[in-house]
């Protein structure tokens, strides 16, 4: 399962994390987010310890979502050393996300 992120733990778990973190900005009322959810959870299982994968419900973390300019959900942002290094919006295939993560793991 992906880690649950909140406005409270976002800085510690994401911005100050030692490894890359993929954050899924989502909401329960968003259909495509519901479709992406299981893919994110599977990814979290498969990627193991190399990366951290978390989900931020934008209803609970509106300030965080607005800080990173989220205007569409689902949006995924990959953080490295506290900075957003890539961002994709809308549904993604698992393969595409694996490719995205492999790049930062090897680097």
């Amino acid at each position, binding site marked *: 399962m992906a880690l649950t992120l909140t406005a409270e733990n976002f800085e510690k778990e994401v911005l100050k994390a030692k490894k890359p973190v993929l954050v899924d900005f989502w909401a329960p*009322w968003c259909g495509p987010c*519901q479709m992406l959810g299981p893919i994110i959870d599977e990814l979290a299982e498969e990627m193991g310890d190399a990366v951290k994968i978390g989900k931020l419900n934008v209803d609970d973390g509106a300030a965080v979502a607005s800080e990173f*300019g989220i205007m569409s*959900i689902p949006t995924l942002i990959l953080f490295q050393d506290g900075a957003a290094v890539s961002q994709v919006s*809308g549904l993604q295939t698992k393969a595409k996300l694996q490719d995205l993560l492999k790049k930062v793991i090897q680097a």
Partner: protein
Amino acid sequence: MRRLIIIGSGPAGYTAAIYAARAGLKPLVLAGERMGGWLTTTTEVENFPGFPEGIQGPELMERMRKQAEKFGAEVRLASATAVDLSARPFKVTTDEGAEEAEALIIATGSSSRRLGVPGEDKLWGKGVSVCATCDAAFFRGKDVIVVGGGDAAMEEATFLTNFAARVTVLVRGEALKASKPMQDRAKANPKISFEMNTEVVEILGEKRLEGARVKDIKTGEVSERRADGLFLAIGHDPNTKMFEGQLELTKGYVVIKPGSTATGVAGVFTAGDVADWKFRQAITAAGTGCMAALEAQRYLEENEA
């Protein structure tokens, strides 16, 4: 090798899976990135028989998946990326490896159409959206544009008025294509205005959407509209790219035999929107899913090795 692979996991794919699994075919369902299909993006479904109080789209799809799995269907999150229908068994390439099957049911459905104008890709998710129910809340008190003149455009525009200050609907045609009740509801809403004969030629903005450049189709005059959000509701295209050159297509839809779900390739069947430009309902998709499974079952019996 599998007996049957079903590509797609909307009502068509899952209904085919339920029937095929009950027939003992142990189908593999390649769910794709849109597990559950379009219905998972809707809220209340009020016209699916058997649910007099209505049912949430995502819940309905979850139930269909469980029902298919209960009878032995294997549902995988993998996406089919290519097929080879020229030899038996059929080959299906997925993003998790290759699969083979004696028969195939294509239930890949359709995807939202994009404008294909400059700026669209760059501002995707940064003001450009195809899902008002997902993104309307990010435009509280803002000005937004809806592109399209059909039922979906009216629904998006009306929903957006719950959040946005003003909604401008840009319509390429001379008149709206939406059904009368949907038109009436949108027209009666004081926050919604319409511009007819108007085509979007460019989406403007650098880091986030700032507006659109539009062309008056009658006069050819080009001007700009300022907006914080732009929602596309310009229809759907069937997901048939991987079948080009292998199956007969018309306007992108798979051509099937009348009264059947069979394609020109024996052993390949279709279900749902991928071959239906006319009805496009959950229940018709489910109906053709059932037909495809029964026809696939009969094909497999007749061609028993």
